[in-house]
């Protein structure tokens, strides 16, 4: 242990006692746990909730129960309280630690450390006063987990709800609720369960599931570090046990690569692109796409300093690392660009929809000019629409047309320049924006969508769909009820009637496609029939292709991958490289299917596909007729509401040939290496890319409808 030893009497003698522990300490280390335990995770937590619901008392109690207080601190405070004739309060402890003399200082966040059995906890204090919400946000945004405190006598209050809502917007997903002052309601289980139901319901509605709801009395220590006979009916954890279950936030290595560019350095002959990998991994040899835009390059090196020796030069970097890379070609790249895999680029556009909180005194209104920051990019923008503007503290909020201070809402912002990022549901790290007003951060929130202006507002010329002045989305919305009322063949005929221009039907010779082809042929509709030959189809599929042409007496136009792209793909990942990772598989789908599809649909006004709603959870959201905003066309799935049995009955009744693999247990048939037969009871698309996550099994042909 260190002791204070001034060694300079001229200075020390003035106030020798000031060298003692008395001096306020914002970081405390508990002495009995000083043995080196290198792998203890550090979890940053924040305690939020309505002011006066007992936060300081809980913190004081936690410090005491974990042995984190300086020796003698508690006794000296108790003595001071006794001298002043005041009952001792645990919150005095915190006040004294926070240099209570200066109220101006105690409003902001500060940090305190203590330990649970298996965790180091860094407690980031966040003020409960509504007027300091910006400080609460600054504190809570740094936290891995949160405790939301509710007073058992007062119940859920406006600031409880507001803080809960902000935890959701800030992306804090690990939340425990403590219901404090149980002693003041006679430890009544009924009262506790009422509050538990209310707050759990509120948080669940935001997509936040509390890890635990814990009845406590911080003042007496019940439920904090030990169970109390008074609350014996509670079967859940104590506060310390709940804290011990929280985990530090992990870097999202399993998400798709996103690396926002901070700067491009040319200090020497190297041209180093610097930035932090926000998600996924980047490796030498990877093909990356620079967003916004359509620039591609291959990663040539990962640079480091001090310069490592040849054998230890890094070849890969992952999420969380600040890196510098070089590329195989000179492209114009600037701060704000996002490096992503060639096969799975970030979204980009000049219109962003977001759910935001607002902190400035002046309400956020339609027409407010802002600076929008996303990743390392920033651009000017104007709020073009506001929806669902509410005070999240109110129980039954009324939607307003502007977003007031400390309120939330959904906004649409038109941007001066395109930004690259992702919807928050796709990537939380590149799916959040910050709003700046007059050079000062004034709000922030989650990205719901990033679009190009063509998709969000009708444009002139070729981008226009159908009759003059109507967007695809509006047209489709008008037509949808008429399509819903018709049988599949009638839908095909109606589409042909309504559309001026080319209609393309893409078939992969699945059972649904065969049924649709029969309907088109039967009615003699002027619809192009094309297939995408990936080069890796089953022999049985090619057999059926030839058989189908004979049966219907027509040529089915084949679209092939670009030979140069295909050669590069196979060169890069090997002939069966798609098994290596989802990104590799997506890269293969991109070259063999998605890019050829774009050519197949070039100039088309409508596209017909064989999707059915019950094929997978993903496809249920797609819709009978939808607008494909990216390609600016209407997309019809005439069999959308048919079951597989109904389709099977139809082809059987009309003697339409089908793939012989269907009889061997193959249901959804794609490329041979990536399709297997199903076991009884498996979902329909379980045989496609069976080694991947169920929810993401699409090749990229069918984007989800909005």
């Amino acid at each position: 242990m260190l002791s204070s030893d001034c060694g300079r009497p001229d200075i020390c003698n003035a106030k020798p006692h000031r060298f003692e522990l008395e001096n306020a300490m914002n970081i405390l280390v508990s002495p009995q746990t000083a043995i080196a335990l290198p792998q203890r995770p550090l979890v940053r937590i924040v305690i939020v909730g309505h002011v006066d619901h007992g936060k300081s008392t809980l913190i004081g109690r936690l410090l005491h129960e974990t042995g984190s207080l300086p020796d003698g601190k508690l006794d000296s405070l108790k003595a001071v309280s006794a001298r002043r004739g005041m009952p001792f309060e645990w919150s005095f402890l915190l006040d004294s630690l926070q240099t209570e003399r200066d109220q101006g200082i105690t409003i902001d966040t500060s940090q305190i450390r203590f330990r649970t059995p298996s965790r180091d906890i860094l407690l980031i204090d966040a003020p409960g006063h509504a007027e300091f919400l910006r400080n609460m946000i600054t504190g809570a945004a740094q936290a891995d987990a949160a405790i939301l405190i509710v007073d058992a006598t007062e119940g859920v209050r406006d600031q409880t709800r507001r803080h809960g809502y902000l935890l959701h917007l800030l992306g804090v997903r690990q939340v425990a609720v403590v219901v404090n002052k149980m002693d003041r309601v006679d430890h009544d289980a009924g009262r506790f369960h009422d509050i538990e139901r209310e707050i759990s319901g509120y948080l669940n509605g935001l997509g936040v599931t509390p890890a635990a709801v814990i009845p406590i009395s911080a003042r007496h220590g019940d439920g904090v570090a030990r169970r109390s006979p008074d609350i014996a009916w509670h079967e859940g954890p104590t506060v310390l046990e709940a804290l011990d279950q929280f985990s530090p936030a992990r870097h999202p290595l399993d998400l798709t690569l996103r690396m926002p560019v901070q700067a491009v350095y040319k200090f020497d002959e190297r041209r180093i692109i610097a930035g932090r990998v926000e998600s996924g991994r980047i490796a030498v040899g990877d093909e990356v796409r620079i967003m916004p835009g359509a620039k591609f390059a291959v990663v040539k090196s990962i640079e480091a300093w001090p310069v490592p020796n040849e054998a230890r030069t890094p070849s890969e970097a992952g999420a969380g690392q600040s890196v510098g890379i070089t590329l195989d070609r000179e492209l114009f790249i600037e701060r704000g660009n996002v490096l992503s895999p060639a096969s799975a680029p970030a979204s980009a556009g000049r219109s962003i929809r977001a759910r935001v909180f607002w902190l400035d005194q002046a309400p956020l209104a339609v027409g407010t000019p802002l600076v929008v920051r996303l990743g390392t990019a920033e651009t000017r923008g104007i709020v073009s629409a506001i929806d669902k503007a509410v005070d999240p503290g109110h129980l039954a909020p009324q939607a307003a047309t502007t977003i007031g201070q400390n309120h939330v809402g959904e906004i649409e912002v038109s941007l001066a320049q395109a930004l690259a990022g992702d919807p928050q549901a796709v990537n939380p790290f590149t799916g959040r924006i910050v709003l700046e007003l007059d050079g000062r951060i004034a709000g922030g929130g989650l990205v719901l969508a990033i679009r190009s202006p063509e998709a969000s507002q009708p444009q002139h010329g070729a981008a226009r769909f159908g009759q003059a002045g109507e967007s695809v989305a509006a047209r489709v919305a008008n037509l949808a009820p008429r399509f819903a009322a018709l049988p599949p063949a009638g839908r095909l005929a109606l589409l042909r009637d309504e559309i001026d221009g080319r209609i393309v039907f893409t078939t992969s010779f699945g059972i649904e496609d065969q049924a649709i082809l029969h309907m088109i042929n039967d009615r003699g509709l002027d619809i192009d029939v094309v297939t995408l030959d990936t080069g890796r189809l089953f022999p049985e599929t090619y057999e059926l292709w030839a058989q189908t042409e004979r049966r219907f007496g027509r040529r089915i136009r084949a679209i092939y991958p670009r030979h140069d792209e295909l050669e590069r793909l196979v060169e890069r990942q090997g002939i069966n490289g798609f098994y290596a990772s989802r990104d590799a598989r997506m890269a293969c789908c991109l070259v063999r299917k998605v890019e050829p599809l774009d050519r197949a649909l070039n100039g088309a006004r409508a596209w017909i596909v064989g999707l059915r709603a019950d094929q997978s959870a993903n496809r249920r959201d797609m819709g009978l007729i939808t607008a494909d905003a990216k390609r600016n066309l209407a997309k019809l799935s005439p069999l959308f509401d048919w079951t597989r049995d109904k389709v099977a009955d139809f082809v059987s009744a009309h003697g339409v040939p089908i793939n012989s693999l269907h009889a061997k247990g193959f249901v959804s048939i794609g490329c041979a290496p990536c399709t297997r037969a199903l076991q009884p009871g498996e979902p329909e698309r379980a045989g496609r890319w069976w080694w991947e996550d169920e929810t993401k099994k699409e090749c990229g042909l069918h984007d989800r409808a909005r």
Partner: protein
Amino acid sequence: MDRLDDLEAQSVFILREAFARLRKIALLWSLGKDSNVMIWLARKAFFGRVPFPVMHVDTGKKFPEMYAFREQYAEQWNLDLIVEHCPPLETVDPTLPPAARSAARKTEGLKLALAKHGFDGLIAGIRRDEEPTRAKERVFSPRGAEGIWDVRDQPPEFWNHFNASPPPGAHLRVHPILHWTEADIWKYTRREKIPIIPLYLSQNGKRYRSLGDADITSPVASSAATIDEIVEEVEATKVPERSGRAMDHESEDAFERLRTAGYL
């Protein structure tokens, strides 16, 4: 990534943000362990070079070992070193207690240097765990025209988005190692083999835990003669790091007054 990797990545990110977003910046080099780590991090961030000046605001009262260190490593690390001298004591607020008044010369020196060079950002090696008022700091911390820190009106800062637009006449303090602890600094110094001033190591049962002006900085009793022993010591201690810095302790609010007026 272990804790040190995480800390390094975050600090490198902050340094690159400062370099990208501000017009003219300098890194404040106090010659102590923290600012040495910061220079090291800057060399990592910018692949071996520090692409902005490194400024020592010199009170003229540092330990001889500190001046020797400055001359040696400014050259070895190829730093663009600026040395600015502080004005005499008589120019400083006489109501401050003696040691604080002495330390406040640095604040005045800083103001003069800012005016002289027109920096809009100064990179400083303060840490949240050093001292309670520093715990309230932002990573990008705006200062008023007089260098004043308004703790009551700090803008929000989250998701690694920083307020980098100081009002005209004001500047930003950038704190790349705000989130490090004293133990982190020593562990990183050990891992990266960063040179230190030998005053930090115990001699005759005493060592300096924090280095400032020779006349107002005291050693603490310690037997830690290697960095390993320092790490062990600072992980176990309950004594504040700056206990040997006289100006922190002369009166309850001396250090706050220093900071509000623009001290580091």
